[in-house]
């Protein structure tokens, strides 16, 4: 217990001494934070500042709250609430059905249940227009069969938007409720039954309360994504706030568009914050691990009903993909009043790959997405590691900076980009991107860096920090530890996030439509243009290629990550 006599003690180590062990984390955080500040935070603030310009803040915001924008905001909120309700019912029922019952066709249904997430946002909506508008496949077929006017069966306007939202957004509920049910401790149900409760009572008093966290996070997520939705309102011509922003900009009133963007940003950020707050305080945790429980098995004639039902639902889920693939082989202009296209050809595909003008959008989207993905991997993976290893205060700041673009609607990100990089100023350090090709990869990077961040973060959570400590203890420098231990162990997570960022970038529409330079049209904007000029076959061929790319990536990342990655595709 003896200590050397000449010890000066009582000196509190300085900050630099305290962080000596992991100084590298903090050094790395500086460039990462600066990049996010420059590309994410500053553009958003510049849009907010710009909204005070033009006729002045008072005019812009009073125009907002008295004019069409206010009713657009109301419409957006109304549609989002209805979407939450619809998706909640569909997603929850499907989750209960698939986790609690066994019936013929269950496995098939399980595979198809998340298929809507594989649809690129624009092409998914196009599929619904082709299927369910007044001139669509289903109303016409019913008209042929029943003789009633096709318009009777058609979805249009707000109804059409809700149909698309219900179909494409229910997986958020389905996935979170399925996970909630799988994690439910079956001994709780047994206990409830053992205490004499009937099934209905057990559901009302035990299971639903336990599922509340899953339902609330599903609802918040659906609400946010629905508020950000642009393609469905555009194709069904419903004046939501996102639509208003784009049309205000198109009409040249940039400062009012900035005011509209700012209001939408604030709403989105509020939801991001409330979601994090809610997830931070969730209280219901099962004490024992989820146990495999028996599914109720259907018997007798119910089996055939169940089989028919699951075939029908599977067909419904497959229909949008099938109709796009089918139409991609149709001759442009030949499909007029028939139920299905009358003439088929391979010309749409051969044209895409032989005509340089038709191939250009694919090249633009793929190359710009590759650039964006590389940047997203560098910044997203680094940020995930920094946050996982950060031990001082202030971590939330970086966390919010990187998750911000996830909460912001694509439209808003587009507006932020064109506003911030329009002309040289102090905040953009003289960098002008508006009207150039380079604004595309920058916007894609901003939109999809949270994907790499989250997927890397999830991977990092599964590796034990003592692995890095072991390597440090054996003498490896921080950089060497990253290279030889951390990166090899999270490579799959990084790759899965990168693949998602890449396909989402290739299919990106919502921000692209605000920012694209006229000489380089990205793929989704080209698809919209083709539809506009009635070249539906070509548009569908582009769409089919997108879907094929997404399916390949989904299969690859599922194979790599087991079961968890499909939930990360989140764009509308």
């Amino acid at each position, binding site marked *: 217990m003896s200590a050397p006599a000449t010890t000066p003690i009582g000196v509190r180590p300085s900050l630099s001494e305290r962080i000596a062990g992991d100084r590298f984390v903090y050094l790395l955080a500086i460039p990462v934070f600066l990049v996010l500040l420059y590309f994410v935070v500053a553009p958003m603030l510049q849009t907010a500042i710009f909204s005070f310009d033009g006729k002045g803040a008072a005019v812009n915001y009073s125009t907002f709250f008295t004019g069409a924008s206010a009713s657009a905001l109301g419409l957006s909120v109304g549609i989002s609430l209805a979407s939450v309700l619809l998706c909640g019912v569909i997603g929850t029922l499907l989750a209960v059905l698939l986790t609690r019952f066994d019936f013929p066709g269950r496995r098939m249904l399980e595979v198809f249940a998340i298929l809507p997430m594989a649809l690129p946002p624009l092409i998914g909506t196009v599929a619904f227009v082709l299927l369910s508008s007044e001139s669509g496949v289903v109303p016409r077929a019913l008209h042929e069969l029943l003789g009633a006017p096709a318009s009777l069966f058609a979805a249009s306007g707000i109804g059409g938007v809700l149909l698309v939202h219900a179909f494409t957004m229910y997986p958020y509920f389905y996935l979170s409720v399925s996970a909630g049910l799988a994690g439910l401790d079956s001994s709780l149900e047994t206990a409830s039954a053992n205490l004499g409760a009937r099934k209905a009572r057990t559901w009302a008093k035990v299971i639903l309360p336990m599922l509340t966290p899953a339902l609330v996070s599903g609802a918040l997520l659906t609400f946010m994504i629905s508020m950000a939705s642009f393609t469905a309102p555009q194709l069904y011509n419903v004046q939501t706030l996102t639509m208003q922003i784009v049309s205000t900009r198109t009409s040249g009133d940039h400062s009012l568009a900035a005011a509209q963007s700012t209001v939408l940003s604030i709403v989105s950020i509020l939801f991001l914050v409330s979601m994090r707050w809610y997830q931070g305080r969730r209280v219901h945790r099962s004490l024992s691990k989820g146990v495999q429980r028996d599914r109720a098995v259907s018997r007798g004639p119910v089996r055939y009903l169940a089989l028919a039902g699951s075939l029908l639902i599977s067909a419904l889920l497959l229909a949008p993909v099938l109709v796009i693939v089918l139409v991609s082989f149709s001759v442009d202009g030949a499909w007029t009043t028939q139920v299905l296209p009358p003439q088929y050809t391979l010309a749409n595909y051969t044209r895409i790959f032989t005509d340089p003008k038709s191939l250009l959008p694919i090249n633009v989207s793929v190359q710009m997405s590759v650039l964006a993905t590389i940047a997203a991997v560098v910044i997203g993976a680094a940020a995930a590691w920094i946050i996982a290893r950060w031990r001082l205060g202030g971590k939330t700041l970086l966390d919010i900076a990187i998750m911000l673009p996830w909460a912001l609607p694509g439209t808003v990100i587009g507006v932020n980009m064109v506003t911030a990089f329009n002309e040289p100023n102090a905040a953009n350090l003289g960098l002008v991107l508006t009207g150039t090709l380079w604004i595309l990869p920058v916007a894609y990077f901003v939109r999809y860096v949270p994907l790499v961040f989250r997927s890397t973060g999830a991977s990092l959570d599964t590796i034990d920090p003592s692995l890095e400590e072991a390597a440090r203890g054996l*003498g490896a420098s921080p950089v060497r530890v990253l290279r030889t231990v951390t990166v090899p162990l999270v490579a799959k997570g990084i790759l899965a996030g990168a693949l998602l960022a890449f396909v989402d970038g290739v299919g990106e529409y919502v921000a692209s439509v605000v920012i694209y330079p006229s000489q380089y049209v990205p793929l989704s904007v080209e698809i919209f243009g083709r539809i506009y000029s009635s070249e539906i076959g070509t548009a569908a061929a582009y769409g089919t290629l997108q879907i094929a790319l997404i399916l390949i990536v989904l299969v690859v990342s599922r194979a790599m990550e087991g079961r968890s990655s499909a939930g990360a595709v989140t764009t509308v």
Partner: protein
Amino acid sequence: MISVSLDRIEKSYGDNPPTVAADIRIEAGEFFTLLGPSGCGKSTMLRMIAGFLQPTRGRILFDEEDVTTRPPNKRDTGMVFQNYALFPHMTVAQNVSYGLDVRRAGKAEKAERIAKALDQVGLAGYGTRRIDQLSGGQQQRVALARAIVISPSVLLLDEPLSNLDAKLREETRLQIRRVQQEASLTAVYVTHDQAEAMAMSDRIAVLEAGRVHQVATPREVYHRPATEFVARFIGRSNVLPATVVETRQDALVVELPGGRRVETPAPRNPNRKAGDAVSLSVRPELMRPCPVDEALLVGVVGAAEFTGASITFEAAVGDLELTVTMPDRADAPRPGDTVGLAWDGERTWAVGE
């Protein structure tokens, strides 16, 4: 081989009083154990030696050199983690090789040292195995090989046996001790298992709530506990309240509950005087039943447990619940019996306060 000093270190969070405060010197070549219940700060101290944590005050010295702010990769320690922390994407040999790679050892030298280290832990020929092909005990030994192959200046072990079953634990602790002595390494071992600490250590620091209760050899800690906490934490002990009647050189005469007097060894303490209250630690195996008129204490036998070679029974003496362990005999006391208890005063200890 170096000595390690935790020189008046404190670790505190915010403005709260320090959660850990200690002043310990670990001699070169010593097997030193930090022993205490969970949350006592033993792992915090180990991580300060390794460099993963910085003390709020005080210094860490390797020999006389201040390493307080030196990053972990420049401290030349070999650490064995509770969960082994083996790199799952590397083979056994690659794991063991990691520290040698960092030190740029030559190829031939590396192969030789890896083979020797694996041989030392009884895993010769396992080099090409993947980590997930090994049992828990084997993984533990790979972790040990990885730590010793670099001939570290200090070997740090953080509850390395707690994930093994009882039998394997005993085998492995002998092996760790043997490897440490063969390589003549300074070792710091963290555990909450007092039997493990007693079996392996040259010296033990008994910790509670971030404070050091006693630093001593296993024998001393067992027979001469410095505090009531140590007496109760190390093995089982009956702690009896007593009153000092007379102070002698290295001993006290005390009066027990019930009025009997007995002489007991005690730490030297010039301030102790007649009338002071002290605690007397009497190990269960020291107590023996005896006729009531010869007894130091008289009690009523409660529950008895037969464990093979011995029986253990509880005896209620007034408010005190005592535990007595004795060889199994036909005339062993039965529940409900009134029993006299006596012991050899030489081997008890007055716990100093």
